[in-house]
């Protein structure tokens, strides 16, 4: 099992009702972690429309998750 720290922004933060959480997970990749948390929080967002950051940089959905990684799921941005 791996311990990862999640930070939520924008619509995911509003839907989850948390700015951050720490989870112990069997997920091996951000993709698997998304699946697990989507089921738990029942958020309304499609992964295909999102990106993921691990340890403050963009990461591939199938990259390996390591213990104590900091993960952020990025819904489509809307700056400007």
């Amino acid at each position, binding site marked *: 099992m791996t311990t990862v720290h999640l*930070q939520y*922004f*924008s*619509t995911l933060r*509003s839907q989850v009702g948390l700015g951050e959480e720490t989870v112990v997970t069997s997920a091996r990749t951000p993709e698997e972690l998304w699946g697990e948390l989507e089921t738990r929080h029942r958020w309304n967002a*499609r992964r*295909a*429309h*999102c*990106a993921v*950051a691990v340890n*403050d*940089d*963009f990461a591939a959905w199938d990259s390996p998750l390591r213990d104590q990684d900091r993960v*952020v799921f*990025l*819904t*489509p*941005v*809307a*700056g*400007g």
Partner: protein
Amino acid sequence: MDFELSTEPLDVGQLRKRLQHPSAGALVDFEGWVRDHNEGRRVERLEYEAYTALALKEGQRILEAAKERFSLRAACAVHRTGLLEIGESAVWVGVSSDHRAEGFEACRWIIDRIKMSVPVWKREHYAGAEPEWVACHACTHAVEPVGSLGQELSEDHSSCGDDQGASGHHRHGHVHA
């Protein structure tokens, strides 16, 4: 070459001074303002939220990529966070170059890229209704980091700019700025 986030109102006069260079013959800048309407709804104010660590990193990469693509003497950009009132500057981009053509092109490229991949989100506040996070209905797609692309805007981005407002020349996203 600096990308910054600011919780304070932008002082564009001061920011422009950063672009000064003895070899520069042109300054081009873009200022995105908070406007009072979007998609037929009256907007009272906007709230911007940033994933600071990555926004600074990605913003800096965009400015550096712009410097490689275009012949620039300087390039800077600042994005606001927090609650903004109508008329406030939400984002500012400025470049200086020897001649104007490069400057216009680079400034446009930078603001387009910022809107595409810098992790900043906005929430619209309305009179008598709950605030809502703004999503791009026309073209919902994942963030495309500047480093991961062939540096060209893909075709599907060109169709979804809503070109609203005096400043509306973006190709992507809902343009409050």
